[in-house]
């Protein structure tokens, strides 16, 4: 999925500049960024457009796990780390993904295509272990199926 690349001002205009729109704006700005994050420039622009302090924007942005203030990969691979998935074999999947991507949990691959993160329960514990790649959730994941998902995305990105 290619990023649409909406500008910060377009997003603020669309969602409104009332205070209650801040979280939605941060998520939308992050979604529009090819590097899946809210940059310092974006923080400044949001603050100016909403007429609030930069520290207010940072305070909200830094509180939420799903908002990143650091550049990340184009695709975010999130591995569920809660007990039901842990017991169902999360460690082996993590190992397989780390090997395939050449990075550790919490890092971004050298080609900037993937970031690997831990995430709290994805609400599919009836299919543990689970992972989420961008907006898609995968249940009953095996080390082989996890690697297959990564390779498919890599192939698609080459085209």
């Amino acid at each position: 999925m290619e990023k649409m690349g909406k500008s910060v001002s377009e997003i603020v205009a669309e969602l409104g500049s009332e205070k209650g729109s801040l979280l939605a704006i941060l998520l939308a700005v992050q979604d529009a960024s090819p590097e899946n994050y809210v940059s310092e420039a974006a923080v400044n622009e949001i603050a100016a457009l909403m007429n609030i302090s930069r520290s207010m924007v940072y305070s909200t942005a830094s509180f939420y796990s799903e908002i990143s203030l650091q550049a990340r990969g184009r695709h975010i691979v999130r591995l569920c780390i809660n007990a039901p998935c842990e017991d169902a074999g999360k460690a082996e999947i993590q190992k397989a993904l780390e090997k395939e991507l050449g990075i550790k949990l919490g890092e971004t691959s050298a080609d900037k295509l993937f970031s690997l993160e831990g995430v709290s329960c994805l609400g599919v514990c009836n299919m543990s272990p689970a992972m989420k790649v961008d907006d898609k959730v995968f249940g009953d994941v095996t080390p082989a199926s996890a690697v297959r998902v990564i390779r498919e995305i890599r192939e698609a990105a080459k085209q």
Partner: protein
Amino acid sequence: MTTLQKIKDFDKVFNFGSYDGSVSLEEYRMTGGYEALRKVLQDPQAATEEICAAGLRGRGGAAFPAGTKLKMMQTNVETERYLVCNADEGEPGTFKDRFIMNHIPFQLLEGLTIAAILAGSSNAYIYIRHEYPAAQAMIRQSIAEAQAAGLLGENILGSGVSVNLKIFSGAGSYLCGEETAMLSSIEGKKGRPRVKPPFPIESGLWGKPTLINNVETLANIPVIIAKGADWYKGLGTKDSPGTKLISLSGDVRNRGLYEVPFGTTFREIIENYGGGMKEVYTLKAVNIGGASGVVVPPEELDCPMEYGVCAARGITIGSGAVYVMDERRSILDNVQNRVNFFLHESCGKCTPCREGLRQAIRIIERVLAGQATLKDLSNLERYTKCMQEASFCGLGQAAGNSLLSSLKYFRKEYEESCVDSAQNIRERGDMC
């Protein structure tokens, strides 16, 4: 029409059946959907009384009587009011609200619309966690369809009553499931909890009266109104009427979501719904109520799922997550996983929770490394009790549940790893 027959099974509150798509607006209306809304518009007073008489209690964890909360809203003189549907479903091991949103979205929307009308809230939000993009999309589309059909939005069914519903996306914070933290989050701030009282029904969103209810609570409402409190009470027990959605996971044969009448024992849930243990291994422990719930041994499982009895026995029904562990599972690893989860989700606003969790994880790591002493265990118990009693919000108050229950029922597992346990001293041949 096989799919319709499945969802027509009316002995339950939720009619997912084995239906694996989503129930369309047309199908929902063909099976009696939105009849309750019509009734409510004709006689709102009777509808409120029906909800009270049914004894419906909040399904988000705290089990507060839903009718009482609704009536408290009605007596407030402020006319600008809000309704917030809590669809944050952050409790690890829980997936019931996702099922409702993905499969029976209109049952939720009807319940939400009814609650908003009865509470006098013309503005409503549904706060859906960011981890559920499919549910967000389904609810967004369903809102549009309900609006187009005159069932939501301006002038509902020509009654002159309006309910404007907006989706609000969370951003990966478990704490935002706590009602006052959720309000802060909707206001654009960090999701930190606020002091209670004032409760949200008095001063909630933007300082205005706000009714907050869980997805499952709201989805019960149309059925209660359509079929009556007496029918509903016939489903559960005297203490806890109705049914509970149980998210069953772990080492059982059939993991999944089940609608279970109150009064069913936890053993029956595992045996009859879950099909018993998955492999040849025996049952070791069950975690009831998610990460903030308790860990109990098999002997406790004959307890009926009922608010009164469970509270008396220290069992937290909570969101209805039941996670089954067989003999291969380590209690300590599980508890460590939970404490790590809370440590990550704690907002750090108050010391008992912030420091209590940090100390707890240090001690557990020592136990796992075989370096702890029995004194560490009694300290762990003391710190945890303090955290439960002195924490500012429900996160810190509940974070100790799995710790304390595991120390109560599985103390041996902790002690086996302590350097100064009688057994280890004996094995090393130390002289006393």
